[in-house]
């Protein structure tokens, strides 16, 4: 078996790399794939929190590299889905604790036993980024329709293009707010795609459900009713090679719907 190693990166922090990693990983595992998530954000680990696995972590990636444990010992199985495992980052160390060759080696080992290895990349373009990208042959660039995020995504795309081992990269547009796009206050999906001239793999709407799902340690893809969850499931399908049309994120416009929206907004504020 040769698994696919996909790095999830963005340049800018706070655009949703970790949320994306957790959700795509969970969705791929739910679809029957064997998946490992690697958190390479050493010193600032969070992927364990989003998956609700923070209390189960015994060994981290640094322990593997420094040979305090075997690789399989450090893989933490997900509560619900035995197909999904996490290789956590160390919280008390920094990015220099692991180097690019070591990460590459870990990815090579995991490739033999798993279908997908998703590498959650730290923000920035320094050592942490270089390490995370080292073992990957595909990349997902996460960005939002904001100027700073798009600019950083452009920089990351430039760096990815310069790397021979990255065979393809796709764009995932996160936190899209259809009502702002409709009123021309926000760059549209088409605008961002045109500016970055990159292929799109997913459009995720801004969803308050993400906050509650993070709080519960339960990725939103597990919620069958959430639009963001649906969007992430579609991304997973596209990764698996299915041709899935992009969701229509525009909000319904009838009077009843408007009143409903008003109430949900009020509810959100209270």
């Amino acid at each position: 078996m040769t698994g696919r190693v996909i790095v999830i990166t963005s340049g800018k922090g706070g655009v949703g790399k970790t949320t994306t990693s957790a959700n795509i990983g969970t969705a791929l595992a739910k679809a029957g794939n064997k998946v490992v998530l690697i958190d390479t954000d050493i010193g600032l680990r969070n992927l364990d929190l989003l998956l609700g696995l923070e209390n189960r972590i015994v060994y981290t990636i640094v322990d593997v590299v420094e040979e305090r444990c075997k690789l399989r010992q450090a893989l933490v199985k997900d509560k619900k889905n035995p197909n999904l495992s996490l290789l956590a980052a160390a919280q008390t160390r920094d990015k220099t604790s692991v180097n690019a060759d070591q990460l590459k080696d870990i990815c090579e080992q995991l490739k033999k036993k798993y279908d997908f290895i998703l590498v959650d990349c730290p923000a920035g373009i320094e050592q942490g980024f270089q390490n995370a990208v080292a073992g990957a042959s595909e990349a997902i660039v996460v960005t939002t329709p904001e100027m700073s995020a798009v600019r950083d995504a452009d920089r990351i795309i430039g760096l990815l293009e310069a790397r021979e081992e990255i065979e393809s990269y796709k764009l995932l547009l996160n936190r899209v707010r259809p009502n702002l796009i409709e009123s021309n206050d926000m760059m549209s999906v088409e605008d961002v795609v045109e500016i970055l001239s990159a292929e799109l793999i997913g459009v995720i709407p801004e969803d308050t459900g993400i906050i509650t799902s993070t709080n519960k340690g339960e990725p939103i893809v597990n919620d069958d009713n959430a639009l963001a969850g649906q969007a992430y499931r579609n991304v997973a399908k596209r990764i698996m090679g299915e041709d899935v049309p992009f969701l229509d994120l525009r909000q319904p416009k009838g009077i009843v719907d408007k009143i409903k929206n008003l109430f949900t907004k009020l509810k959100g504020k209270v």
Partner: protein
Amino acid sequence: MKDLFASLYNKVLSFFHQAENKDKESAKDVACNRLKLVLMQDRTNLSPAIMERMRNELIDLLSKYLELDRELLDLNLAQEDDQMALMLSIPVIRAKDEKEIEEILKAEDEKNEINNEESDEESESDSDENEENENSEDDESDDEEALEDEDTEDDEESEESENDSEEK
């Protein structure tokens, strides 16, 4: 009477609606345009100072043949799909006539000769070119060609400015 009021009401409404839309369009368009510019600089590593220098050198070069509006000359890098393009919009006041061009070229050659006294070969080839120019002045057919050139230059200019306005 009712109809009159209704149409008036609609007009007022549409007026406000338009004004509102115009304001809102800009927020997204401003973002797009600012981003495109800044990304162009990021991608090329050409600083504004270097772009300005390139602009000035281009003006100097073109001024030998055309009378240009220096202030309005617009030079931008633009991205079209995977290709980068240098968008140049040049407002031409008028094309210079042959005599003017002759004089400028002559003056320039003389300048070059003074500057390049060390490298004799170069100054020789320069004077060769100069002779050729003088010869061509005698031929009427060349005059016609020159006129045609002027036309095409004007065409190019209008094309380029069209492209430019499309972008904006």
